[in-house]
């Protein structure tokens, strides 16, 4: 814990100096509440996600972060009993409007999950191109697409000589970068990441964080993480979720990551980012 505090203080100095510029808003939620059956999971979440920035969602387990991120690309509705109120705006339009095709939404808003989930029956190359096959999108020059997305995901050098070997042969960290490449191949504008590093070793985590920083030059990234140093390292903005026992989760505080970690306005945020609970 002491280490954390020291690291925070160092970063504090470094990051406060950096100017936080305001970018146009890519996605935002307006009064989003979420239920499973009768149980309310989230209450009144309002967050703006700025274009080509990284937003970290932090908070203790069970506060609804993962549920929230799944409402952003309409995966939430696949769970029986799921319900929702409020609006999720993507490029100014509510993605839950009646005439919006969820397939189109998920093409624009990709996702990477906690556990690496490459398709075991496909090769490395096949996995990268699987999004095109599954969605019926035609894109020219598969070879350069494979190279380009694997390079973006920081995996190209490691696998370029064995693109046709099964994806299952890769290590956990490599598999996770492979599914990032797979998500990128359909050219999304937003990438959701639900604790993408929680099952990985520190070296792989570092590689994925580099990847995230690189990717945020081109796309918007929303990442759920339990690792506070990771939030500091990769994100521009942070939203802190909290849920009291048996109560729906809500956003305690949100803003530039430097503010949330350096100068939080809420005592609970201060306690959480300093590792005093959660």
């Amino acid at each position, binding site marked *: 814990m002491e280490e954390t505090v020291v690291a925070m203080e160092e970063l504090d100095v470094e990051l406060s100096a950096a100017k936080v510029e305001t970018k146009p808003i890519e996605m935002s939620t307006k*009064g989003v*509440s979420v239920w499973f059956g009768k149980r309310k999971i989230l209450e009144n979440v*309002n967050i703006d996600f700025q274009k080509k920035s990284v937003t970290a969602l932090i908070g203790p387990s069970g506060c609804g972060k993962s549920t929230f991120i799944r409402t952003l690309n309409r995966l939430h*509705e696949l769970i029986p009993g799921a319900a929702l109120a409020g609006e999720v705006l993507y490029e100014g339009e509510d993605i839950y*409007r*009646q005439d919006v095709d969820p397939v*189109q939404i998920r093409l624009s808003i990709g996702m990477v999950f906690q556990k690496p989930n490459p398709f075991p029956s496909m090769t490395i190359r096949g996995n990268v191109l699987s999004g095109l096959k599954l969605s019926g999108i035609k894109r020219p020059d598969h070879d350069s697409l494979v190279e380009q997305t694997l390079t973006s995901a920081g995996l190209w050098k490691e696998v370029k000589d064995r693109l046709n070997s099964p994806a299952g042969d890769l290590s956990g960290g490599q598999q996770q970068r492979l599914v990032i490449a797979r998500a990128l191949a359909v050219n999304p504008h937003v990438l959701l990441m639900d604790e993408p590093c929680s099952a990985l070793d520190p070296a792989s985590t570092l590689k994925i964080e580099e990847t995230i920083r690189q990717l945020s030059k081109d796309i918007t990234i929303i990442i759920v993480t339990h690792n506070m140093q990771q939030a500091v390292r990769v994100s521009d903005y942070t939203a802190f979720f909290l849920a009291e026992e048996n109560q729906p989760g809500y*956003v305690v505080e*949100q803003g530039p990551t430097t503010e949330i970690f350096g100068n939080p306005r809420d005592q609970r945020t201060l306690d959480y980012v300093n590792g005093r609970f959660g």
Partner: protein
Amino acid sequence: MTILMSEVPPIRKEDIAPQRPWSRRPASFWFAAFLGTAVPFAIFGGLFFVTELPVPVLLIAFYLPLQLIGAGLAGYSAKGKHGIADSSIIVLAIGATTLSAIVLGSMLLIIIVRGFAAMRPSFIFQNSVYISPSTPLEYGGIGHAIVGTFLIVGIATIISVPFGIATAVYVTEIRGRAVPYVRFFIQAMSGVPSVVAGLFVLTVFILTGVLSQSAIAAAIAYAILMLPTVARTAEEVLKLVPEDLRTGALALGSTRARVVLNVVIPAARTGIITAMLLGIARVVGETAPLLLTALKNDQTVLNPLSDPISALPTFIFDNVAQPYPDAVTRAWGAALALMILVSILFTVTRFLSARKPRR
């Protein structure tokens, strides 16, 4: 500061209600769905009265393709291009399910309708002593055959389930050298014709004088038929138990025997009960082995070791070929009773096995 909670006024609790925006469909979808179903159905109905083609042919050749087009249009109106593929899959799945339901349902219906004529308390509780095929339905019943079925299937279950689970444990937990041969053998055994099982018991146990034709002899024949089903299903469900549970138990200092008995089998309990039920379902209607090993008996027999015994399948077999309508009705009644008994057995077992683990 660009984004703050306070920018949006907090919504009061009573203002918001849970909604499912994804299940809303535009009116044009409902219109297309209605039209896409009603028109094919009308054409199907018209062809049915005009052409005298059999119903399955009409369903597959005319109704289903038209319904597919209708559903595709409805899907297109709701979701555009992606809606077509999704709605076609849904229609194909519903179509295939409906066809199987029609085939199975009509059989069920005929058993219920014909069998219901025989149903009365005396039919369930009395035996068939002094009853000839021409005796009116008011007299006699299948009580003795129900008892016979319970006795034979019960003993067969007691024999085959432990053997089946033990075989599955050998294959999945002990993983001995003979595993491939055992699995091949079980696979091959599941193809044994039921009459051969009966003949086996007849030659090995009955003609040698070890057993007489009785419930126990029939139960052995049934157990031979049940064993491959139970063993195979139990193997599949034990394989589904995560390896982590086994290593977790071993890491607590458990012996392998304890791992199997206290962790693996309890974790697979519901599946093992399914294995047992599938085994029972495999044999409960088998007639041929009973004809060789149990013969028939109009008395109610409670001693499984000595006397010939009737069971529901042999009762049906005896009565269905009689030239008397009442005897044939009895056979339908026995078939209905067999179905009801199996349903009750399955429902009760499912209910009991679905209980939460005890604290």
